[in-house]
């Protein structure tokens, strides 16, 4: 997931610390606490009431073409319909794609280079206008304009055969639909033409950027002030940065929508609310949902774990997020694989886990792919007793590297993230045991990938040998997790998310996976990439994250979905009328 997506809240909070480790995760389920997270809590189909949500930060944007937070993808389904969506269902079921605006999943032709969707008839915007394939095309077109909408993912930019097209706002054709890569032969049909074969295009079609936007109502950067709804709810008020409310959309028709069963009459969402306050209000019953879905803060975690009644109302949802650190081979002596191996062996992984909240915060990761991603294999390239590190092996590797007494380097992390700070300090302590001394260097979160750790020149010049980072899949799938962090060809002058994994063999395997249409064979390749990266010792995997989610007793139909790795926001209801 992009750095944007992770920036989340963080802005908020006092510079330092009033910030939780933010972020929307990609997807997945898990069970935790004393509850069965695989099932539905408080199943009910009673309608009415208003669900109260709060966000400790703010959306990157409510505009479906300009958003990249996991919770935002989850939430956007309330006010918009994309071509395809993740099924609103508990557990693994929630990670399956179902057609939403389209009648069926995409139909690939030309070796998966062309994808065709047929829209359901009778879908209307909130003002009663009928949705056509042109509205979908226009929505995708505008999302390509990254100077106007910088936040969203760039899959369409990367895969569509753009032929130089940049933006409908710079489009000379009168209807602003000049993009050749998308055809709309009739009002119900939309055809996507890709530059290269891609077997997983349905994952792109579920992005909010395929939610239709009526061109006449498009106000560019101001569209987020009133997004025109196609879903069961529409915006009633929207006070930017403060709060907004959703009410039922009279022009949404249940007959056109098999995926949604909207229970409450509306949603009240408060923004920029202090994270600790959100936790307290949830427990006091003054609030229903912490919308970011990243779990409670450390104080609340301590209180909940110590109280069985509270604990019974939680789910410890496993996510597709991995907290890891990159060993930067640009920085000597880490260009030598033995020195990297030494770091791998010397690190006390339990310290990493503690930094992220102990067992409740996640499991110790031994490789890249989070176990909830289909096809992920678990293996340990650098085993040690109790995961506390193997100092003898580490010293041995140091000797082979020609640095028998250790060496000095730096470790960078995002200053506003207390957990990353704790991680950096844990590294410092662990590695000191074999004589590797670390200088701790915090950088502002907002510029971490743009100006500092994600800028190879800077990282090299400043000797950032270890870069603390984290990544969540954009969707629960090997491509969604790996593509942005291990492909060496995506490394740019700045703004990188691959912070130094450079192996041509890995790149070749990625290419092979893209054209492999057999799911099992493709999943095997993802696992092989994982193994290769680990044996290169480019990454110290830390923690496969879990989020401790609290659900007040008045919420009905609550479940964690693998597609969202948090509570599914389409299904919930409330008993509080």
């Amino acid at each position, binding site marked *: 997931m992009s750095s*944007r997506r992770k920036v989340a809240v963080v802005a908020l909070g006092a510079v330092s610390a009033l910030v939780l480790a933010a972020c929307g995760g990609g997807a997945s389920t898990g069970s935790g606490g004393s509850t069965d997270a695989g099932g539905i809590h408080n199943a009910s189909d009673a309608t009415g009431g208003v669900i109260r949500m709060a966000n400790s930060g703010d959306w990157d*944007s409510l505009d479906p073409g300009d958003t990249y937070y996991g919770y935002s993808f989850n939430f956007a389904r309330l006010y918009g319909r994309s071509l395809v969506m993740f099924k609103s269902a508990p557990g693994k079921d929630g990670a399956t794609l179902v057609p939403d605006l389209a009648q069926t999943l995409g139909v690939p032709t030309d070796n998966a280079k062309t994808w065709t969707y047929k829209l359901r008839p009778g879908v209307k915007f909130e003002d009663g206008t009928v949705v056509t394939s042109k509205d979908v095309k226009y929505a995708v077109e505008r999302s390509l304009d990254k*100077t106007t909408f910088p936040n969203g993912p*760039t899959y369409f930019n990367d895969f569509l055969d753009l032929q130089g097209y940049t933006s409908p706002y710079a489009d000379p054709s009168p209807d602003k639909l000049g993009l050749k890569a998308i055809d709309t032969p009739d009002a119900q049909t939309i055809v996507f033409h890709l530059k290269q074969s891609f077997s997983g295009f349905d994952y792109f079609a579920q992005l909010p950027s395929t939610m239709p936007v009526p061109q006449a109502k498009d106000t560019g*950067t*101001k569209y987020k002030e009133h997004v025109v709804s196609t879903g069961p709810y529409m915006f009633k008020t929207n006070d930017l940065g403060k709060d907004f409310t959703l009410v039922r959309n009279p022009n949404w028709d249940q007959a056109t929508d098999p995926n949604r069963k909207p229970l409450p009459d509306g949603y009240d969402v408060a923004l920029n609310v202090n994270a600790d306050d959100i936790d307290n209000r949830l427990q006091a019953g003054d609030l229903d949902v912490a919308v970011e879905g990243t779990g409670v803060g450390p104080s609340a975690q301590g209180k909940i774990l110590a109280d069985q009644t509270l604990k019974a109302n939680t789910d410890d949802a496993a996510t597709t997020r991995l907290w890891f650190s990159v060993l930067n081979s640009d920085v000597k002596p880490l260009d030598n694989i033995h020195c990297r191996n030494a770091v791998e062996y010397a690190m006390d992984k339990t310290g990493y886990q503690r930094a992220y909240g102990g067992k409740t915060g996640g499991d110790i990761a031994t490789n890249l792919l989070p176990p909830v991603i289909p096809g992920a294999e678990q293996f340990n390239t650098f085993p040690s007793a109790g995961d506390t590190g193997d100092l003898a092996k580490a010293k041995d590797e140091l000797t082979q590297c020609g640095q028998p007494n250790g060496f000095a380097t730096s470790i960078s992390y995002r200053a506003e993230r207390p957990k990353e700070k704790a991680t950096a300090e844990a590294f410092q302590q662990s590695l000191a045991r074999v004589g590797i001394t670390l200088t701790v260097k915090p950088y502002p979160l907002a510029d971490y990938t743009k100006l500092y750790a994600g800028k190879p020149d800077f990282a090299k010049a400043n000797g950032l040998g270890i870069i603390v980072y984290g990544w969540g899949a954009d969707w629960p799938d090997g491509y969604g997790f790996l593509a942005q962090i291990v492909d060496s060809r995506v490394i740019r002058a700045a703004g990188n998310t691959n912070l130094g994994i450079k192996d041509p063999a890995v790149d070749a395997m990625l290419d092979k996976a893209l054209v492999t249409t057999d799911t099992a064979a493709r999943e095997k390749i993802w696992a092989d990439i994982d193994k290769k990266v680990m044996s290169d010792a480019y990454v110290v995997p830390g923690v496969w994250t879990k989020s401790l989610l609290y659900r007040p007793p008045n919420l009905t139909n609550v479940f964690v979905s693998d597609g969202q790795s948090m509570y599914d926001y389409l299904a919930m209801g409330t008993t509080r009328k």
Partner: protein
Amino acid sequence: MAVYIVRRLIAAVILLLIVTAATFVIFFLVPRLAGATPDDLASRYVGKSAGPEQIHEAAVRLGFTDPIVVQYGRFVGGLVFGRDYPTGPTTTYCPAPCVGYSYITQNPVLLDLLNRLPVTLSLAFGASLLWLVGGVATGVLSALRRGSVFDRGAMGVALAGVSLPIFFTGLLSLSVFSYALGITAPGGSYTPFEQNPFLWAYDLLLPWITLAFLYAAGYARLTRAGMLDTMGEDFIRTARAKGLPERTVVVKHGLRSALTPILTIFGLDLGLLLGGAILTESTYSLPGIGKYAVDAIVNNDLPKVLGVVLLGSIFIIVANLVVDLLYAVIDPRVRLA
């Protein structure tokens, strides 16, 4: 008088220009000197996978490629005349005084500031009322009973008050009163006054008290000293000799002249506070100007920072002006020249 005010206003405008120019220098010139190019600066405000051309386009759109003087001129122009902003399909006119649009959220900064001002105003209003009343009353009583147990106790507490950082008293009071005892609102609570005045006061009670505790100390000490000074003056003796009741002497004669310096400090403190109670708002997570400022800085969102700096400086300057004018009214010896 009119000439004086006009002169002061001109000086104030110049001061504002200097303050905002300094902000520009910090955000543009300093990074430039450190080696950042306009494209580097712009790369913060485009998507994660923007290519060099897109970044450059953004730099041009945001005006980073122009000399700093030109950028600054554009900012001042927006303040005075308003300016146009591209929104994608069209441009939107941002009327004067246009503080600009956030680089990141694209929200108009002025709207943001107006949204958050009530929080900071509420905080400053309640706290200043508390500390003014509490501080002055304590000061007067201490002065009248100089050397008594009350005097020494009050002065001790006062010294303790100025020695406590608000982010410590804030956390401490939250943990005791809000979380352990549950009698005050938890951190981050704020209810607008027009929504529910009672809840408004309840939510802000703790921040008010901690903030007032910090300031009241200074006022108590100042009042006490002023009172002791004036109570020894001839006109007090005259008043007493006239047979006026002691209360009249203290309140009408003593306190009045002791209050002049208090007013000065009060004006300045209030001005500073309105410019952003950064630490208080951070500690209690109140969505006011101070917290907004911190967020803006963390995200390098220059238009927001400029907005806060401008607002803060205006408050300080206005407070100074009002204090000086009040001075002239209260004390005819002060000549406005």
